[in-house]
């Protein structure tokens, strides 16, 4: 059991947690993730470690309440406990001084990109950060990014904040402006990562994405997290999660992430049902 030290909503349905986990904090490197279970009957879900604080002995994770488990997680507050927490899992990001690096985060993907962007800055890169969101409320970690990046560009689909448009529009602008981009990191929804890969491919810019398949153990034991990269099957939890964006089979990734769509709906309904019942019970004494 790991104690939640701090918890706060930073966007719609998006909550940031600092969790007591000194061993993981001491070992964690950018790009790695943890697997957690919220309750004794809970499922195991992977979440990238956004940051760690070795002094406090804590790690930071950010979750968007989409599925049953993330919704339950987002009901927890400081002082509550996480049932199980294991990590750091996966291979750390490959970080070196590439020159100019563009870090692109879409939605909660920004949280995942943050840790690696920070590492890229430490390694001496000029870091340009693009933060994308559906609308203003979905733009997260702006302040944190401003602290570490040389430049921060914000885009929203509806233009309610920053530039109106997609992250790829801003990426194109940077490339077209004559800035020599040596490295691109893109983390977010699959269509976004695929779109970024399509933009950088003709320029031959090294581009890395972090994949988010369904996982169980996270140690290479089950093979449920398999993806195809460069025409070869990989286990994302041990061979990744970061891969060369130009070689990832995004169509397969999308397909495999839908395996449990029907059941997930049932599970969320079951969860909502339980919450309603509880609300009823409270209301009716």
């Amino acid at each position, binding site marked *: 059991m790991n104690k939640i030290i701090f918890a706060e909503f930073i966007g719609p349905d998006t909550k940031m947690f600092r969790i007591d986990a000194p*061993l*993981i904090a001491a*070992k964690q490197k950018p790009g790695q993730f943890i697997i957690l*279970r919220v*309750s004794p*009957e*809970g*499922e*195991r879900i992977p979440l990238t470690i956004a940051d760690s604080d070795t002094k406090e002995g804590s790690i930071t994770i950010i979750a968007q309440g989409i599925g*049953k*488990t993330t919704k339950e997680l987002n009901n927890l507050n400081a002082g509550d406990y996480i*049932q*199980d*927490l*294991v*990590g*750091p*899992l996966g291979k750390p990001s490959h970080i070196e001084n590439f020159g100019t690096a563009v870090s692109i985060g879409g939605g909660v993907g920004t949280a995942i990109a943050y840790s690696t962007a920070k590492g890229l800055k430490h390694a001496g890169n000029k870091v340009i950060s693009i933060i994308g969101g559906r609308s203003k409320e979905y733009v997260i970690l702006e302040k944190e990014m401003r602290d570490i990046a040389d430049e921060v560009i914000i885009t929203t689909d509806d233009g309610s904040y920053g530039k109106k448009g997609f992250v790829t529009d801003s990426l194109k602008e940077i490339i077209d402006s004559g800035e020599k981009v040596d490295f691109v990191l893109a983390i977010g929804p699959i269509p976004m990562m695929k779109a970024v890969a399509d933009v950088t491919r003709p320029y031959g810019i090294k581009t890395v994405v972090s994949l988010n398949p369904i996982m*169980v*153990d*996270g*140690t*290479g*034991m*089950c*093979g*449920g997290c*398999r*993806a*195809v990269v460069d025409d070869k*099957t990989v286990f994302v939890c*041990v061979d990744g999660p970061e891969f060369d964006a130009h070689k990832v089979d995004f169509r*397969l990734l999308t*397909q*495999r992430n*839908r*395996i*449990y769509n*029907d*059941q*997930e709906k*049932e*599970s969320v309904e*079951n969860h909502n049902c339980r919450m309603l019942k509880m609300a009823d019970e409270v209301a009716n004494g």
Partner: protein
Amino acid sequence: MAEITQAQRMKIQRHPMPEQDPKVRARNFKEVNFGYDEKTAIEEANRCIQCPKPNCVKGCPVNVKIPTFIQAIADGAFRDAAQILKQDNALPAVCGRVCPQEVQCEKVCILAKKGKPVAIGNLERFAADWERENIGVHPPHVGKKTGKKVAIVGGGPAGLSCAGDLISMGHDVTVFEALHTIGGVLMYGIPEFRLPKDIVQKEVESLMEAGVVFKPNMVIGLSTTIDELLQEYNAVFVGVGAGLPYFLNIPGENLNGVYSSNEYLTRVNLMKAYTFPSADTPIYDVAEKNVAVFGGGNTAMDAVRTSLRLGAKKAMIMYRRTEEEMPARKEEIHHAKEEGVEFNTLLAPLEFKGDERGKLNAVVLQKCELGEPDASGRRRPVPIDGAIVEIPIDVAVVAIGNGSNPIVSRTTPDLEVNKWGNIIVDETTMKTNKKGVFAGGDIVSGGATVILAMGAGRTAAKSIDEYLKSE
């Protein structure tokens, strides 16, 4: 009780294991076998003629004192029977259920020459269950504290038996386990209907009572490394199991609905997907669908019988060779058939096919016939030219074995492994090439059996004890 004559003994027929009706049990997750009652156990124990030079003991990988514990049952001294078993086997309630007795002790039992062997496995199970149900599992005796500390990596049968022995020898023992539950394959692989999880957890609890410390959620190699453990502990035992699923490497294997047996069984057993949505982890909906399981071992039988219990319309085994060559326990094959599993042999999968949404809907298979024996002495399946069939299926489970998980070896580069990634040890001591590091179980032998893993854990405990004394 009146003394029984040898002639009378020989007349007693072997007592079958009472079990759930096949039609009923094929749709529930409750244990298939009920176990003997006291009267049946005593009668079965009376069949043993107490050979002065018992073959059965030699046939047992850990040389359990079989006639001695059977005599205790015959005398009604059930508590003693359990104690005798535990002198050589740390988990008799488990082994009585999952050991392949028909190729070990029971195969060489003298009675097997003329008729049916003594039901040694059933008796083992009876004694262990009797103890647990009537007086509770006895924690191992704890020896005088030595002040030495041992780290065990992996909470499967190898790690547990090593931990049990080391705590009795007076050492401090900490078990590090990657998953959130201790037990290894006993928890995530072997299904509830064959090995109830409560039984495994009772065994783990008894080790806890004896002072063994368990640290779940620790992946050694990532959470901390073997080298770091060696700074804090006097010795390390590595029992991380096999744990890297093989796939068939045929087209379509990443379609939705194709599983490794590890994932399929882990979702159902460890994560309790069969109670979904009460438990949160889902499994592909197999109700009224066709499931094909590829393989002929225990894992394949577990997966196919699990599918029936999840409501499959048709649950099929697809095997390259013939039933003769299947490595599964005979009892599992027999049970699977009784429950309605369809056996298809001499079929090699060529391709999985799916619909436009990426859902599996068929498998293409090559029909084979038996050819010349191969290196293992088994007749090799050879394709029959042009004999190709396509069968509609919705779920496929690949159960063709495991390679070795690389996390430990990758992060311990000076630990010697063979070309398959198995850790190399001296077989008499379980010592690796790295000072203070011992290993045993599936990570050394490749996928084997519970009893062999436990035997390896025990051998390692003995030599760790010697190592610590000489240190």
